[in-house]
């Protein structure tokens, strides 16, 4: 029986992109359903009644929620190729730690910076840059976070890269100047079809955020 795989997502979500990259890495065919979060579909509410958020992966009718959990699920089910998790338990723990770190810190800090001004904005910007510097330190001199192979933490972090142009423009800084090693890692990731074919154009992301800002400011 063929697998039925459906993804409830929104094109601009960094968390949804993790799942799309993971599915692409494994070569899994799936049905993508773009969601309208201002008008949540009955399917989304049925499949994620707890959080009512995307992404949700529906595999043979059963939902899996939370992007980092979905990516691990994908790795465990489609385990015949391209393993995401390192083989050593310690390295796995490190990968999980940093994905958890990025979950807790990046989006929240971006929001602090986004629509704020003056001191608050500067503080948000400083914090955001320091988060990426910490992530850059964690990479060290490795090719990927997974070592020689592109893995769980690479998948967890690469979607944020298409938001860099947005962060830079709102924060008036350059990632290349602040985190050159991280940017080199981004370039290496983009050599993979699963990444380059999946992630949206960073200017499109910026235009989306600009439009959101206009809506929020007109309220």
């Amino acid at each position, binding site marked *: 029986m063929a697998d039925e795989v459906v993804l409830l997502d929104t094109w601009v979500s960094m968390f949804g992109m993790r799942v799309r990259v993971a599915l692409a890495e494994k070569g899994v065919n799936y049905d993508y359903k773009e969601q309208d979060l201002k008008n949540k579909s009955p399917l989304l509410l049925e499949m994620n009644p*707890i959080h009512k958020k995307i992404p949700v992966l529906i595999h043979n009718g059963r939902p899996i929620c*939370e992007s980092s*959990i*979905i990516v691990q699920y994908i790795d465990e*089910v489609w385990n015949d190729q391209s393993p995401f998790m390192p083989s050593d338990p310690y390295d*796995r*723990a490190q990968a999980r*730690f940093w994905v*958890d770190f990025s979950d807790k810190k990046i989006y929240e800090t971006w929001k602090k910076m986004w629509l704020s001004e003056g001191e608050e904005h500067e503080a948000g910007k400083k914090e955001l840059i320091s988060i990426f510097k*910490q992530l850059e330190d964690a990479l060290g001199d490795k090719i990927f976070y997974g070592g020689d192979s592109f893995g769980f933490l690479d998948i967890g972090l690469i979607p944020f890269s298409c938001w860099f142009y947005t962060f830079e423009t709102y924060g008036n800084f350059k990632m290349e100047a602040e985190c050159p090693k991280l940017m080199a890692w981004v370039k290496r990731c983009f050599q993979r079809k699963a990444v380059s074919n999946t992630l949206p154009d960073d200017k499109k992301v910026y235009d989306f955020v600009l439009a959101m800002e206009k809506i929020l400011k007109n309220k």
Partner: protein
Amino acid sequence: MAQEDVKLLGVVGSPFVCRVQIALKLKGVEYKFVTQDLQNKSEELLKYNPIHKKVPVLVHNERPINESLVIVEYIDEAWKGKSILPADPYQRALARFWAKFIDDKVFGAAWKSVFTVNEEEREKNVKETHEGLQFLEDELKGKFFGGEEYGLVDIAAVNIAFWVPLVQEVAGLQLFTNDKFPKLYKWSQEFLSQPTIKECLPPRDPIFSFFKARYESLLASAK
């Protein structure tokens, strides 16, 4: 083979540290508990957890692992013995989801319900705690969240079983009661009485006094 060197940096009375202690005990791992002074953080803590500077930190053969749920999964993978996570990928995804839910939605809200002086903030967090507890109540189908035997979600929920009733008493709140959540309450009694779990729980009275003092100092500082 080199002697296993396992250290747990923690404090007695932390629910997050308790989770790790339960996991280590389940696997029969011998370890050294290194009590931390969180008001005066040790060089060791800052070296092993520079990012969050928090407990618990598990140090295994000099290598640190942070974040209680990450540590519990690590313990499950590094040592043989009783499994903490299920084997089936879908069941594993569900276990991880509910453990994360407890941290993200229930325990934080419960804590904020107690340790606040802002009535609006309290009301908001009480509501969120009740909603979260109701989801857990509905999710509990068997004896434990893990089924016939306890697993990751039960261990994560030790925060709710032991600490929520304790701190709600400190503030005189009705967050988690037998009336409102009978299945969850029954689960908590069953879980806390399991020998392995019981041995890892801190003594109730000193912990109660500690949180009561903290609550009273919070009220006093708001006046």
